[in-house]
């Protein structure tokens, strides 16, 4: 079995080679027999109903949308009416959403079938999917490690379930959300194309908030073309989200195929320094050489404030999270502790039992950063750094069209190897976090395999609202390479 793309499935459905119901059953069967723990909930009944409706619609309509009847998986951070929505947390273990997130609704309106809800780090806080209340997710590439299996690898996080599911062929694509790298890092770890759109492209309504000023939904697919197709159905202005962009909708596939022979690639020295795994560095250099062959020019650039991104992020994101997660108080929905003495004790017991360690850690960091007497030193200061980091990109894009580097400093690591060391875990996102702080679009695409047989991701960053260009730059690379077509389920080289 090799990878199957949305574009291929779309063609097969259109040509009548397969029906949506057949396709949906096939994927549901694969999910059923998989052992990756990639899903928290599988919504078979609803999926088959949607698939049937899609098949009916296709038979009665000539101009159906490109992804009509295509099944995908949704990160369990999106509310879907009548469906359990946990956000990877015990506190929402039994929460059934009474409404549907705008992004999911947009996809359903395009005829996309939802197979189920994928596993994730609790409240999207994590880089390994190990903070999920619903257990670790197995990276499908674990078995492809050189010298045989050395135990399980993490799929990355927080969209680890989505990444593992696509990689393992349990779904042709999935949604993810990216606050500091939660789409791109797992995409890199699982050999996928992951796109974080510009902040405001996709509505956040119905997407459970981690850090409101950073969160953004995006596609996780095999190819850039698929990412463009899926993003077409996700994006758009939403009156229910005041931070969503009121810009005309566009076709993100429109630039696919445009020549990139006048492209200038900026390589920031800060992304190739200490801490970068040698193996990964070599793969990224090779990828850049491919682009040079395509006519792109290389320019050394600098993002001088990059080193401030992580400290800035680890003030802003927890600060917003500490407030966003206050609503999980046991009063109206979700978990309520069974025994408590009074109101304050009810809050304390509920939140102590309902939240995991990483979530508690970030709530405490955030509450501290916002507290009276510390606000100026932490939160206000972090916001200033955020502006400096954003300005770095503005200046850099005066010299280049796209910034490239590694998505992560190292490939997927072994389960449990970093879970007791938050700082080493946080360093996973050192290249991805500046992008969220600046609100820019970025992607991670497969860039080959380390000597240990693990995938590495090439990170591409482009100016605000230039997703079409970004996706074409990724697409041009995928036209001349086949890293993205490698599946952990095939013998490498046979793809």
């Amino acid at each position: 079995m090799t990878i199957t793309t949305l574009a291929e499935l779309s063609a097969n459905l259109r040509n009548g080679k397969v029906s949506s119901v057949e396709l949906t059953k096939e994927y549901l069967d694969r999910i059923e027999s998989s052992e990756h723990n990639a899903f928290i909930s599988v919504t078979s009944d609803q999926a088959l109903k949607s698939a049937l409706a899609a098949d009916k619609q296709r038979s009665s309509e000539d101009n159906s949308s490109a992804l009509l009847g295509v099944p995908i998986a949704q990160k369990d951070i999106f509310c879907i009416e009548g469906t359990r929505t946990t956000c990877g947390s015990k506190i929402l273990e039994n929460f059934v959403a009474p409404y549907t997130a705008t992004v999911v609704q947009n996809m359903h309106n395009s005829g996309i079938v939802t197979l189920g809800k994928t596993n994730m780090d609790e409240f999207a806080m994590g880089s390994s999917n190990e903070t999920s209340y619903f257990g670790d997710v197995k990276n499908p590439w674990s078995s492809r490690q050189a010298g045989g299996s050395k135990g399980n690898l993490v799929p990355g996080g927080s969209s680890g379930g989505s990444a593992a599911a696509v990689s393992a062929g349990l779904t042709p694509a999935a949604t993810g959300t990216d606050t500091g790298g939660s789409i791109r890092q797992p995409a890199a770890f699982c050999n996928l194309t992951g796109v974080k759109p510009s902040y405001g492209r996709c509505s956040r309504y119905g997407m459970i908030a981690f850090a409101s000023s950073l969160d953004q939904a995006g596609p996780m697919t095999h190819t850039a073309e698929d990412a463009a197709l899926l993003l077409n159905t996700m994006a758009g202005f939403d009156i229910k989200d005041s931070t969503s962009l009121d810009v005309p909708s566009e076709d993100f596939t429109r630039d696919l195929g445009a020549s990139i022979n006048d492209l200038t690639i900026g390589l920031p020295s800060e992304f190739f320094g200490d801490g970068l795994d040698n193996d990964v560095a070599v793969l990224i250099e090779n990828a850049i050489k491919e682009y040079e062959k395509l006519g792109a020019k290389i320019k050394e650039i600098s993002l001088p404030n990059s080193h401030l991104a992580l400290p800035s992020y680890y003030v802003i994101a927890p600060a917003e999270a500490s407030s966003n997660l206050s609503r999980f108080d046991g009063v109206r929905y979700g978990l309520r502790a069974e025994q408590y003495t009074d109101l304050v004790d009810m809050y304390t017991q509920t939140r102590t039992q309902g939240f995991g360690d990483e979530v508690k850690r970030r709530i405490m960091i955030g509450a501290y950063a916002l507290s009276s007497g510390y606000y100026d030193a932490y939160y206000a200061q972090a916001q200033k750094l955020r502006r400096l980091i954003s300005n770095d990109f503005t200046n850099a894009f005066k010299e280049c069209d796209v910034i490239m580097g590694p998505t992560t400093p190292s490939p997927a690591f072994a389960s449990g190897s970093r879970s007791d060391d938050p700082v080493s875990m946080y360093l996973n996102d050192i290249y991805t976090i500046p992008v969220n702080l600046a609100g820019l679009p970025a992607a991670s695409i497969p860039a080959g395999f380390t000597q240990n047989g693990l995938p590495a991701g090439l990170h591409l960053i482009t100016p605000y609202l230039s997703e079409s260009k970004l996706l074409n730059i990724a697409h041009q690379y995928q036209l001349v390479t086949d890293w993205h077509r490698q599946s952990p389920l095939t013998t490498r080289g046979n793809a």
Partner: protein
Amino acid sequence: MFTWDKQWEVVIGLEVHTQLKTQSKIFSGSSIAYGAEPNTQASAVDIALPGVLPVMNLEAARLAVKFGLAIGANINKRNVFARKNYFYPDLPKGYQISQMELPIVGFGELEIDTENGVKTIGITRAHLEEDAGKSLHEDFQGQTGIDLNRAGTPLLEIVSEPDMRSPTEAVAYLRKLHSLVRYIEICDGNMQEGSFRCDANVSIRPRGQAEYGTRTELKNINSFRFVERAIEYEIERQIDILEDGGEIVQETRLYDADKHETRSMRSKEEAHDYRYFPDPDLPPMVLEDSFISEIKATLPELPSEKRARFEQKLGLSPADATVLTADRAVAEFFENTANTTKAENKVVANWMTGELFANLNKSELDITESPISSAQLATLLDRVCDKTLSGNTAKKVFSALWEQEGDVDDIIAAKGLKQITDTGEIESIVDEVISNCPDQVAQFKEGNEKVIGFLVGQVMQRSKGKANPQMANQMLQEKLK
């Protein structure tokens, strides 16, 4: 009256929460109508389901700007909403969306009347925020019910300077503010339903001392009377402490109207750290100049402007002008009546502040619920002008109007109250009286002119009050000369 007057100076500042008269909530589309079944006006946004987001209702901003313009305040064009974080069951998100820095309304002023004349009270700021829900303790044994219908109702919190120096001044300010928000139609002012709520910051200091004393904040004082009584109680309490050599603790105190006392709710040490920060879900709200100027154009004549006009242009006394402009509906009733009737403005004012207000008060009715319309009052006063009615018969007609027995002229006809102005008819009654009261006639002729009153009275009695008293008087004088 109070002992504090000599030694102690009282310093009072008020924080008033006014519910804005929008159709829907400040950050969601739910209705804000009062009195619905619990939780029937609470949407996904209002109950803070996971993933929901606030969307600013511009109508709330419009009403806030209207208030700012009415107090001559600076309107902040760039508005930032902040989260005020604290846990409480009736606060669904665990934070209240409010404004911290950059409130929509900056410094403004309001004039109040005091015994010593007009005094200007500063208004520090007014900011937009959302109301919380309500905790219901009564209906649930040992448990608390939560009604989130009110959660998200738009509030304008109006914060005064510590400019008031007595409970009377505080109440005068509060009344003035209450009148203003209803005038400009941003709030219905219903204190029972909680549309207009007041907290008071109270401190005392020895007369002549420049620094303020330690203040306490009084809550739960939601009527003009309670405001006055709670502040009075609090002043006495603070004086007792200081005169006993104690210290005032900065704290929030709750007023208990039944026991007429304030008691500690939480001290400064227990005060929340609200961890304010700009709400990342709401981009700054930037108001265009055109938005503000459009509101300015719709602003009605303000109470102070109206009062000046009533005095200067309409010739009313300061007292009448004050009473008749305190409420917009009252002022409209007055102007409608005065514009329709031939009677003088002063006469209209007398009838309104006298007869009409007395009846309204007795029946506990608002002017808008008056059984007598301004048109009816105008006609009634016209009938006095054209001498169809005397002062006395006019009052009878007024009573009949109050009982809704018909229109003015119908009532006059039905009750036969039309004044007799026919000379012949009056003359025959006058002749009867002269022949029936020989003693009084004799006294009058002997020079006791006061007795004429008795004789006129006899004429009125015999005419059942319908004779024109001036004509009767004149005719008696002539016949007895």
